[in-house]
């Protein structure tokens, strides 16, 4: 097993105090260390947004590309060198808005990469506009009378697009998040994890009391889908996992 310090860089991250990104970055380092993945074997790929700076502060190979375009880059890296451990990162604006099309097709394509999406329901780096996952009626700089669109349901989208690993984690629960990340990294196929995260500067308060954990994944895609489309709680854990078809 490796050490988290193997992935430590000397630069200091410039995220806001209290940002969930710190916890997510820590969890990634811990998952990599516990899975004994060496720094030179790992590639972290991201796009644009607060979250997207994560690869700058982990001592591995990083690829920080364009807004929404991480999944094609990450899949390209993996196809060119399947020996690498490639992890893709998205944000709710980056991954569900700008890169929504790539998300659907990455689910279909089922290439062996985990995809962690930092979901705080707000655009942080552009100072607080509502994002594709914001509740309908969310008031923000760009929606002074409340947003008019229904939010994207990322888990339902993933399940209906053929994803073979679908999970949700909470950035405030480090131990559980590391566990889910490790399962995603070990999954053979496209492994999607939506990570509920607070934005201390622009986001709403996270209703932690509504969080419940699944004890085990649903046995069918249909059952998992039924749960995610009609869930009055914030259910966390692995919703669905299937073995890659050869």
């Amino acid at each position, binding site marked *: 097993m490796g050490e988290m310090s193997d992935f430590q860089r000397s630069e200091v991250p410039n995220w806001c105090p209290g940002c969930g990104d710190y916890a997510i970055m820590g969890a990634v380092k811990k998952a990599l260390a516990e899975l004994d993945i060496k720094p*030179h074997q790992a590639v972290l790929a991201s796009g644009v947004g607060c979250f997207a700076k994560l*690869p700058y502060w982990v001592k591995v190979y990083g*690829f*920080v*590309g364009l807004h929404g375009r991480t999944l*094609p880059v990450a899949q390209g890296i993996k196809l*060119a*060198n399947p020996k690498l451990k490639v992890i893709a990162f998205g944000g709710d604006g980056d991954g569900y808005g700008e890169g929504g099309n790539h998300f659907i*097709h990455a689910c279909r394509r089922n290439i062996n990469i985990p995809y962690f999406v930092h979901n705080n329901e707000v655009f942080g780096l552009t100072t607080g506009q509502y994002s594709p996952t914001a509740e309908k009626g969310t008031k923000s700089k760009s929606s002074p009378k409340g947003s008019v669109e229904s939010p994207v349901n990322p888990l339902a989208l993933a399940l209906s697009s053929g994803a073979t690993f679908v999970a949700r984690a909470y950035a405030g629960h480090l131990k559980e998040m590391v566990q889910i990340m490790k399962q995603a990294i070990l999954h053979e196929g496209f492994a999607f994890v939506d990570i509920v995260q607070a934005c201390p500067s622009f986001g709403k308060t996270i209703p932690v009391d509504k969080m419940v954990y699944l004890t085990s994944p649903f046995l069918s895609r249909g059952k998992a889908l039924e749960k995610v489309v009609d869930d009055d709680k914030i259910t966390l854990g692995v919703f669905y996992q299937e073995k890659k078809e050869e």
Partner: protein
Amino acid sequence: MDLTIKIGGEAGFGLAFATDMLARVFLKLGYHIYSSKDYASQIRGGHNYHNLRVSDKDVAADRQQVDCLLAFDQETIKQHLHFISPKGIIIMDDNLKIDFGCNVGASAQLNSEVKVIMIPLKKMEDELKEKRIRNSILIGAFCKYFNIPFHILEESFKDIFKEKPQHIERNILAARKGYDIVTGQPIYPIEVNHDHHLNKKPDIFSGNQAIAKAAVRAGLLFHAQYPMTPVSEILHYLSLEAVKNPELVVLQPEDEIAVINFALGASFAGARSMVATSGGGFALMVESIGLAGMAEIPVVIILGQRAGPSTGMPTKNEQGDLNFALYSGSGDFSHVVIAPASIEECYIETMRAFYLAEKYQLPVIVLVDKQLTESFKSINIDEINQHLITSQTVDFNSTVSPNNTGQFNLSNLKEQRFGIKNEVVASELQNGLYPRYDGLEKYERTLPGTILGMHTCAGDEHDEIGEITEDPEIRIRMMKRRMNKLNLIVQELPSVSVYGNKDLQNSLLVVSWGSNNITIREAVDILQHEGKKISFLNIKYLKPFLVEEVKNILNQAEKLVLIESNYTSQLGGLISSKTCIEIKDTILRYDGKTFTVDEICAELRKRC
């Protein structure tokens, strides 16, 4: 001999097959062939035609006259009758009508020597109990008129149906029926040409095939493409190639944005990568071209122009994307734009593109057009190989061992890597990471997987290890590093040369680029033969631009004229901005058609 055959009909009649077959027949007889097509953006119906030119010389341009018209529909007769040469021949379906009285030029009056041959295609198909085999019947009849031995036809069918042998017999049977219906003396006996310049194993390449074959030879490992006219054939060719070669990954992603980002990811991981598209798809790629420039990622982009803007005329020709290719992306960064000017150059310049992209870690655009990509011709691969020796002036890479002459043979490209550092020692590290963006004339990266080679490949402004920064000093250093690439590349490009009359002071100098090149060359040959003083400058390297060389040539010429297939004379604009020389006399076309040799000759005769 120089024969132009035109094969016309509705889409779905098998015109492409008929053209391909006749091309193979003439190749077996020892002739050079060249074929272009004009078709509508629909799968069935419409009016399409294919030109096939057969010559004892190497040809690659369209003539206006038609020596033999193979007509499958009335529209073919209507549109092309007035271009029939005085001793031309029309072979057509017997249910079609011909009326020399209307819509006809002086060359094809009723009393001319034009031969019209009616073939009862429907009746013969019925006798054969076949439905869609009239193209093979017509080819059979054609071959008899031209005294071509039937066994040549048989061999060609066997070649063309190598992968589908079940079709050989029935097509040979149909061709035999067409061959036998013709009686009497052949009208235009064709001799087997022994005195040709093709090598022993001639091949036929389209521009698309030349690009795809060159990419494979250059060591292509990753190709992504969303289908788009006029470059879809590259995707088809490479998809088949990937079946044979498990190392090659060929992918059809969800859109062109995904296409180029897949390629950038693969290239970052070390695979030589290529994408191909046309104007609309290229528009989607533009942001990522800037990323490749900023993060210094090699990628080869094939941009096959068609008539724009927007969807435009998808199957028609234009050279309207030069400015777009030159100025694609926000901010200042280095990228290369090369415009091959023949099918042979599609091959050579694609290999050069891979070389430059990897060595200088930047995007290289190979700018072609429908006329180049979808036309095909007989190829002498030995001649191409001679052109693969290129000068290599910048030898900053320790992993390469160039020979002493300062030349690099592109044919060995697959075996050589550029700018890739395989071993890193701890003393080279900065803040524990590899300074992949270090130096003003050194472009060396580590591939993921290399021990101690970690860094960030960054679309943000970054320092040597790829760490995000907004520090003004680092910004200046990195801008200079990226922009310096063009200064180095320009030293590696082959010199510009003038075709035709070298005495420019008493000459009309024609300037052009891309697919017009071969057509203009042939026109210059004809006009020189007529005693005219005429020269031609083709500009192949658009970015970086060989400013001094071009300026020097333009300054010497007595008169200048520019030929382009676009509305705004985009090359003219580039020349003017680089050399301060404005070429006011222009011959421009933007009707979706390509220039014929005859049209160019007529225009140039007015000027010299």
